[in-house]
């Protein structure tokens, strides 16, 4: 991901009101993670796995934070049980941001995640938007976090095509 697009993700998170983030870095989003780790407005917690990140974000919400989870497509699979739990049992909002590896047009072979990402979100009843153009990154992050907080449930933003690679 080019730094200027990563910067749009950070801008979108801030304009969405996000002030807390947790996750595990991945190659496609590494610029975003580096910016988050250095950002003064967003407390970023690097966790050992993505399920742990769900717990950290969930706990932060109870302390008045507006949390985002930064999950790779592989990490979404790791986080699934805890995400499903906070969505369907506790009903707590988090913004989930996913670089959508494996979608059509991805120059690398990551087809596994085409089979798991959207079906997984649908199975967990987590609404999502796919962002394909970088000009839509900021607004989509704002819209999705607003809905997450209104609906008291996780909402996901998936970045692909020109918005990602």
């Amino acid at each position: 991901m080019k730094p200027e697009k990563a910067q749009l993700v950070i801008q979108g998170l801030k304009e969405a009101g996000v002030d807390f983030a947790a996750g595990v870095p991945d190659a496609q989003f590494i610029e975003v993670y580096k910016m988050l780790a250095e950002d003064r407005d967003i407390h970023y917690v690097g966790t050992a796995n993505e399920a742990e990140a769900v717990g950290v974000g969930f706990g932060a919400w109870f302390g008045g934070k507006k949390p985002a989870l930064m999950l790779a497509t592989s990490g979404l699979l790791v986080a699934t049980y805890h995400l499903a739990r906070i969505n369907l049992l506790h009903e707590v909002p988090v913004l989930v941001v996913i670089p959508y590896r494996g979608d059509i047009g991805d120059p690398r072979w990551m087809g596994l995640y085409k089979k798991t990402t959207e079906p997984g979100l649908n199975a967990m009843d987590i609404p999502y938007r796919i962002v394909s153009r970088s000009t839509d990154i900021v607004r989509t992050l704002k819209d999705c976090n607003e809905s997450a907080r209104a609906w008291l449930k996780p909402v996901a933003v998936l970045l692909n095509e020109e918005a990602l690679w």
Partner: protein
Amino acid sequence: MVTRFTLLKELSALVPDDILVLTSIGNNSGFWGQLKDREANLFHLTMGMCSSTALGLSLALPKRKIVALDSDGNLTLNLGVLGTIANEAPNNLTIVVMDNQNYLGSNKLAPGMPTATAGKMNLESVAKGCGFDSACTVEDVAAFRDKIQNALASAGPHFILARVDALDKDAPKKSKRVPDPRENKYQFASYIQKTEGVEILGSGLGGG
């Protein structure tokens, strides 16, 4: 050794009203709900999610004392969280692990299956290896009381491993209903809003 219920009963007498207590699923939630019925409890934190939730809350509310009542099976499912906690180093957080060396499942009348701590795993050593400066093991009420009082009075993060019997044969019959996760969410979030002055629950209806 001692039973979990005995230690939780002791803890219920030691914990001031304003300390937030987060409990793992199963007996930690069930017993704590009987012993300390109040708004400052967050119950039903599932396998691998108790200490991580406590970490997030402790970072969000750095001036508030927080106790996580975790257990051996729950913690070992997401053991990496101990390294994350040590690195983030929230000085307001105490992790208490009720280690009965056992997965009881739904059977509370007979031991279920052993956890790793029934074998060679030592969670105090794991915590120290992860970077906790304050980590200890207790096996009786007096030591438990001493370590809890010290943890609540000093800067953490603290890790207290309580080795307890597999079964809680001294636990009385359940007398109160523990709030379900959604009910508990509203209670706990409302309490934090009231006592911390933060906004958590928006109406989603345009009214704030």
